[in-house]
């Protein structure tokens, strides 16, 4: 292990603490300053009762009569030990509910990321190697389309064309990767592939003019090796950085994609719980996605050292 690495990881994890506190505090405080009482509404919906006693009993049971600061401190203390509370609706532990749904979201996000990389990087390399040709122009236009297309619309178009008209794939549902994962993954991956293609192109354009690439060519290396080993590896740091930044878009996009394709992931759980005013689940999902996001970004930061051994963590 590289010197300074454990300290670096620890420092990064400590930096995540204010983010967690900020996110939980915002949702917690907002719940209390908003007019209208979510508990009353929930009790009315759940127990079909407008009896104030029902709401009072509900509040007592869930400790909602404590002062806000006490509730918040309890929540943080429990969350730090991995206990995110119980669902108002099903009384299932929040963490269990989330972990049940997590594999579906992980599959979707991983497949989308794979598609984005498999399309984006080759497209960017080709555009850079053939700068100012028709191929380059086509790649740039394609990327401009991909960046702007709303993923929920793309999903609906895919369902309409591929599932309804051509009947090649099922319109929605959850099951084995083929045939169920294909359209959701394309829907979620397209925007990111466009971003990656753009950045790969500009990053490669910068690198292929460098002396070390000329040297590699001069010593007679095959073009393939020049591009893949000497140019791409050096061009990859900005690409990896942008993938890290875009992970947030991937996670937000997953919420929407899961809604379009009725994909039973964490995003769908979040939206269903918002509809049912199941606030512990809502808060748990938000916190969970934030944690995944922070961890993935840490992985991205750590990969810099592998890409560029000159980088030191201190």
């Amino acid at each position, binding site marked *: 292990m590289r010197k300074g690495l454990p300290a670096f990881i620890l420092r990064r994890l400590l930096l*995540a603490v*204010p*983010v967690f506190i*900020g*996110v939980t505090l*915002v*949702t917690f405080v*907002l*719940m209390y300053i*908003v007019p*209208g009482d*979510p508990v009353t509404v929930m009790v009315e919906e759940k127990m079909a009762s407008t009896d104030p006693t029902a709401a009072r009993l509900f509040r007592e049971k869930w400790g909602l009569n404590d002062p806000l600061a006490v509730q918040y401190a309890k929540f943080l203390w429990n969350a730090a030990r991995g206990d995110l509370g119980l669902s108002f609706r099903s009384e299932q532990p929040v963490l269990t509910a989330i972990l049940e749904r997590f594999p579906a979201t992980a599959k979707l996000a991983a497949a989308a990321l794979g598609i984005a990389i498999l399309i984006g990087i080759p497209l960017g390399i080709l555009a850079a190697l053939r700068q100012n040709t028709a191929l380059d122009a086509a790649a740039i236009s394609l990327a*401009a*389309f991909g*960046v*702007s*297309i*709303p993923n*929920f*619309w793309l999903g*609906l*178009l895919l*369902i*309409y064309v591929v599932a*309804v008209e051509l009947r090649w794939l099922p*319109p929605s549902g959850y099951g084995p990767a083929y045939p169920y994962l294909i359209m959701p993954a394309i829907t979620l991956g397209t925007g990111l592939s466009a971003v990656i293609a753009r950045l790969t192109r500009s990053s490669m354009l910068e690198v292929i003019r460098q002396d070390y690439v000329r040297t590699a060519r001069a010593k007679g290396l095959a073009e393939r090796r020049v591009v893949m080993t000497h140019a791409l590896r050096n061009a990859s740091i900005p690409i990896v950085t942008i993938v890290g930044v875009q992970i*947030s*878009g991937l*996670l*937000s996009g997953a*919420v*929407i994609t899961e*809604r*379009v394709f009725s994909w039973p992931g964490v995003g769908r759980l*979040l*939206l269903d719980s*918002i*509809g049912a005013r199941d*606030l512990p689940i*809502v*808060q748990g999902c*938000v916190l969970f*996605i*934030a944690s995944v*996001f*922070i961890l993935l970004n840490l992985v991205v930061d750590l990969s810099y050292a592998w890409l560029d051994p000159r980088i030191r963590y201190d």
Partner: protein
Amino acid sequence: MSAAVPIRAAIRTGPRRSVWRRARRLRNLTIGGLIVGAFVLVAILAPWIARHNPVRGDLNDYLQAPGGRYWFGTDTFGRDVFSRIVYGARISLGVGIAVQASALTIGVVLGLLSGFYGRWADNLIMRLAEIIFAFPGLLFAIAIMAVIGPSLYNVFVALGLVSWTSLARVVRGAVLAVKEQEFVEAARALGASNRRIIVRHLLPNIVAPAIILVTLGIGGAILAEASLSFLGLGAQPPTPSWGSMLTVGRDYLTEAPWLSIYPGLAIFLTVMGFNLLGDGLRDLLDPRMRV
């Protein structure tokens, strides 16, 4: 002769003219400007362009296919999809511009405070920006909407709260870069107030990056509003928001694909227009990117 032409051309080409000439050569700027201009016109002239009432329909005309009286067909309430899209431009552009206007105000004020006064103000504001920046923006907005409830005004509040961070950073950076330069020191030596230094010497330096960020930000805010409305967390019926039109479209994809195709196309074109315009403005205004 051969020497005279370039000199005369140079005399005619003042700085303003050269910007104009460069602008016309930037294809993304032109296309983006045309698309955005067209949608702005549609939004302004909506009552004259729309052919039917956007919120009241004729139930006898339930789910009519495009063509005839209804160019883009009708929805489940017999409302004209074309007219709803035309009025929807007001909502999309309105939210986009309002969100970015508040982001600009918050961003410039906090960025100036942070860069100009430094110390604890800087620390506090930049940590806050980091926390917001470190979190998926749309998800943050979803969380806020989950608590404060769905409405168009709340969309504006939620997006405004998360959209100011990059502007604040840019403003702070520009202030730090300019603050120690001699002309600012000279202005101070001449007795200029902080306010005068900010208005006369600092703000002009952030106009270009602010224009670029705001233009790109409007596209982002329009997409975010459409996403939230699509999830049922934004504009509520019968408001003709493009995003919520797609929510209905999803349920009728087999019988009435036009309910999904046209509103989505409107979102796509508007967002692409702002993206191209923003990229074009960056090519035009940001000296570091000039070729």
